[in-house]
């Protein structure tokens, strides 16, 4: 069966994540490599409460529901590429 695998990236838009570098993550959609173009859904999320654990995990993002701590665009793309390769296998 040929279904287009789509991935969901949710970026925390809470205050802490935003000032700790989360603002930049909103540009993820423009930075996706060609192999992932059109297959990724990017949306925002209200604070997940990760900032209140005292462990400095922000900014946070979710890739298919899995938490990425100290997220950067590169980190999210790497995660997406790994998942994508695994899905193709």
């Amino acid at each position: 069966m040929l279904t287009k695998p789509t991935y969901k990236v949710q970026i925390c838009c809470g205050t802490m994540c935003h000032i700790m570098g989360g603002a930049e993550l909103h540009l993820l959609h423009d930075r996706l490599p060609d192999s992932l173009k059109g297959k990724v859904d990017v949306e925002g999320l209200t604070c997940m409460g990760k900032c209140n654990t005292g462990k400095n995990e922000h900014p946070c993002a979710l890739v298919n529901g899995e938490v990425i701590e100290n997220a950067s665009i590169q980190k999210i793309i790497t995660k997406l590429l790994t998942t994508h390769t695994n899905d193709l296998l």
Partner: protein
Amino acid sequence: MQNVCGDACESRKLKEEDRIITVLSDGLGSGVKANILATMTTSMALQFTAKNDPLERTANFIMKTLPIDSTRQISYSTFSILDINCFGDAHIVEYDNPPVLIYRDGEFINPDQLSQTVNRTDDIPANVHYSTLKLQKEDRIIMVSDGITQSGMGHVRTPFGWGLDGLKAFIKESITNQTNISAKQLARKIISRAKVNDANHFKDDATCQVIYCREPRKLVLASGPPYHKNCDAMLAERIDSFQGKKVVCGGTTSKIISRELKRDIHIELNNYQPDLPPVAEMEGIDLLTEGILTLGKVSSILESNSTNYIKEDGPAEQMVRLLLDSDSILILAGTQINNAHQDPNLPVELEIRRNVIKKIAAILEDKFLKNIEIEYL
């Protein structure tokens, strides 16, 4: 040419007595001298009226206090004082300004006037008119300085200026064309028309004040989670049942409301603005934003802005626009402290919400004359 306005107008709201006083004054001459006369008159008139001093004393005092013009040997400035209380009783005091216009149901009404002669120091008697009326819903009060009524003087079409009749016809036409025209829009319209009369260059200082009596536009602004968790449901219920615009400010607060009302939050990331987190959407809520950063920006916009005109379209600007387009604002401030914001190592300073909210409320009240009620949860 001196680029200082010789008209002055000032409004003040007396919260305890639920009164609004507004004064318009036109000083003699032009430039700095006129400005000082007008400003002195306005502030004196405001103070005395606020203290409920009798009119005669106020008028007398103003005339005695104003400095005497060295060339003309008189001290002079006109004034109109309007004092409205919470029951809609309006007291109008007029001295030498174009008459205050009251528009009701398509007509201009003339309340009964009482004239009093006040003795001036230079023995020129001054006729001060005093009138009282009961305001009704949808009434409009228009106060102008003579720069408006005399605009266009000397032109072929209006040799003696626009005149009161021209102004009245224009107001009537504007209101007929747009029945719910706001005070701000009408005042701006009158000013720009007067400017056109003067071929886009005013020959005299022109000021226009409009008051529109209408059902207050209400808004609720909820920010911050309640201190006690069991108040969450109450907060959500109050927002949901509120009649008017609804603004929710804060990620956790949005989540509480989303949970209690079982409505999803959706954040669209297509509008990249690095300074503030994006706005979110929820059914039934007019604006959903992040908390403390947005509130901080709102406060600084309100502080630096003296007009009601906002150009940009960021989350904070959208909130300011909603706030300024409302008359009666209820702020539901949650008092729970966000521990994550207390870290001294943060790259930006995060203020305590309660302080920012207090500041916003004070600006809206003093500068924009809004009715504010803050409730701490």
